[in-house]
């Protein structure tokens, strides 16, 4: 019984079988010539699906709209949607799949910092083009990535300025989820506050894990910290799911915005649509876009969105605007460059300008960040925001923070210096160059 079986699995046959099997993998989906492929790399399942699914829909909507206008360069756009399932290594794998197998011209995607960090080497190696639409911690500038969300100086610092000047806040709780965005933002804020003369004992920094749901102790800690006779505010970089129980606890503990206002950097209209907002009245959020901002472009956008998603109750939010800006910038760049070739598109992008949804314009800077206005809104009882403060002009995004010792000498400039990480002291470029 044994001998013939060994024979039957002789190498020639096995090799043939194996080759056929591998052929399945090798079958490259050759890009059809009449379309331009656009990759969408947002989690549709797992923990991040809550936030990212909306962005996938936004990109699909934008593609739809663009195709109605006749596409780009005479070709229709074709979306390639994949699901990295909130799994970070899978993000890298899916990025490689989009770039190497599907040969997409551009990718819109990622939400969390770790997903962006995970795909970064892939984009740099394959010379891909990624538009990243979420506010983030900065400390990065890649040739292949355009950051259309806010850098810390476009969100955190203006918000703190507002609290300090307009609300006369003297005592600060920096409450965040324990990951890189809050850590970095809080480091920057801590340095900034200290530079403004706030004593170390008036700053409380606290971290909780992802999805944290039992806020009783933390909130009572905040309450106790806030009862020292100085106006206290909470700067919240709490992420995602942990927000709802946090605000519920705040509401139940009757910590009102008049006593201890909470200004959040990750809570927008979409997050609030999952919360009963009555107890949150008056708490703050800092963004570069609010759905309630009145402008013709915004009304148009909201209308298109409602039609596309077939639901009048769906809200819009800041990362959606960032996606909108990123998409329009890419279309402009492709039209200007006359090709979808990534090297040429990347070279074309800096300096381009497109209208944002709030009446201003977004300009691509040499450091691959864009200019954005900063708004501070108070939560209304209908889950929307009242704008209580805004910057006079758009703020330029800063890749490297001036308030961190490691990065204050660093500069990103892909136009003249051709470097994302140039040390102005040593005059050297670290890492990727152009």
């Amino acid at each position, binding site marked *: 019984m044994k001998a013939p079986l060994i024979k039957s699995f002789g190498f020639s046959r096995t090799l043939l079988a194996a080759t056929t099997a*591998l052929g399945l993998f090798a079958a490259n989906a050759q890009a059809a010539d009449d379309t331009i492929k656009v990759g969408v790399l947002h989690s549709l399942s797992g923990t991040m699906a809550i936030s990212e699914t909306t962005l996938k829909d936004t990109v699909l909507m934008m593609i739809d709209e663009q195709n109605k206008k006749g596409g780009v360069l005479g070709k229709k756009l074709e979306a390639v*949607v994949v699901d990295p399932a909130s799994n970070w290594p899978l993000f890298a794998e899916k990025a490689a799949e989009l770039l190497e197998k599907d040969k997409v011209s551009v990718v819109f995607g990622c939400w969390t910092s770790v997903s962006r960090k995970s795909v970064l080497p892939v984009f740099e190696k394959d010379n891909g083009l990624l538009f990243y639409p979420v506010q983030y911690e900065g400390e990065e500038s890649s040739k292949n990535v355009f950051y259309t969300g806010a850098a810390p100086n476009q969100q955190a610092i203006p918000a703190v300025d507002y609290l300090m000047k307009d609300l006369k806040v003297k005592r600060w709780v920096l409450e965040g989820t324990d990951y890189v965005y809050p850590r970095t933002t809080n480091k920057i804020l801590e340095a900034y506050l200290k530079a403004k003369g706030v004593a170390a004992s008036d700053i409380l920094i606290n971290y909780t894990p992802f999805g944290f749901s039992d806020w009783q102790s933390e909130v009572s800690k905040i309450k106790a910290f806030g009862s020292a006779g100085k106006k206290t505010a909470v700067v919240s970089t709490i992420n995602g799911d942990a927000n709802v129980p946090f605000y519920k606890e705040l509401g139940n503990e009757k910590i009102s915005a008049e006593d201890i206002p909470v200004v959040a950097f990750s809570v927008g209209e979409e997050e609030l649509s999952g919360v009963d907002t009555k107890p949150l009245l008056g708490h703050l959020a800092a963004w570069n876009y609010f759905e309630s901002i009145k402008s013709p472009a915004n009304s148009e956008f909201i209308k298109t969105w409602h039609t596309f998603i077939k639901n009048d109750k769906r809200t819009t939010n800041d990362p959606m605007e960032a996606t909108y800006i990123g998409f329009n910038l890419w279309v402009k760049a492709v039209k200007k460059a006359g090709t979808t070739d990534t090297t040429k598109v990347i070279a074309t992008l800096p300096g381009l300008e497109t209208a944002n949804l709030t009446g201003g314009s977004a300009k691509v800077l040499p450091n691959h960040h864009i200019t954005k206005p900063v708004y501070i809104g108070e939560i209304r009882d209908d889950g929307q925001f009242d704008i209580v403060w805004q910057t006079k002009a758009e703020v330029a995004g800063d890749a490297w923070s001036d308030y*961190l010792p490691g990065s204050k000498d660093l500069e990103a400039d892909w136009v003249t210096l051709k470097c994302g990480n140039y040390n102005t002291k040593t005059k050297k470029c670290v890492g990727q160059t152009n």
Partner: protein
Amino acid sequence: MRTSSPLMTLLFGDFGSRVFYALLLAMLIVVPLLNLGVTETSALHLSTYTVTLLGKYLTYALMAVAVDLIWGYCGILSLGHTAFFALGGYAMGMYLMRQIGTRGVYGDPLLPDFMVFLNWKELPWYWLGFNHAAFALLMVLLAPGALAFCFGWLAFRSRVTGVYLSIITQALTYALMLAFFRNEMGFGGNNGLTDFKEILGFDIHLASTRIGLFVASGIALGLGYTACRAIAVSRAGRVVQAIRDAESRTRFIGYRVENYKMWLFTFSAVLSGIAGALYVPQVGIINPGEFGPINSIEVVIWVAVGGRNTLYGPVLGAFVVNFAKTYLTAALPEVWLYALGALFVVVTLFLPQGIVGLVKQLLEKRR
């Protein structure tokens, strides 16, 4: 040549193993050929993406074999085996981080980037030594091994069995996940370790390095498989299966059941650690998510889908489930979870012996 030598029996003693060795060898020859030997324009060319993907599957397969050794043969259902996988991965990741040197964004020769912006002044003691490949390799084996040994020593001596054991293994990996999420731990928190540049002096993004890693994973799988099989067919392997079938009886004929379990568990953990160490450079990131209890359950599912207590079944299972996942997340991104969930339900309900069992049944029927 004596074909009936114990070694030959060990290697080619059963049909499944022969198929396994043949396919593995074929893969190790064909894949590099199609990637490096065929021009990119050819239809036969295998992209580096595919090579990396296959390399990842190979490490998953090794992990599945390790889990099968303790579950299929000894009846220990560990729902925390990714803890060892991730530890091995972190050991490798730490080595790769140290290899970055001054090429990090802040150009610090000693500290990884995440330490620089968190204001760490010096390298924590547990990072020392990881700049040497040999030390890192030792840690790949030692870290998971030591943890498994301690855990096994505690758990098996006090006769924690069955469901209880499964659940505390889950607690173990869950606790580790939470711990590694903490930025204070010095392992990069949620972002983990990423942005690797080179391994053993080779650029990690080069196709040839990828092939090297792929081949290394294949060899590791082959050796790991052989070692597991050697254990399985030895008298110790029979003792282990005896423990699975009738633990009390085994104890009452004079075996120290806890020692057998402990050593087997430790060995399996070391194999998982090796799998993790090979996994990390291929996917390019290791973060605490790898400790996730859900991941552990998925590994168990690969084993079940392939067919446990066979060693080759889990290899098949790892490939089938992960290929399905890769394919479906791109082809049907909205509904792939239905398909995957249904696969698990159907396999457990209708294929208690997995795909391998089904094939066996069909072959027997034909005869």
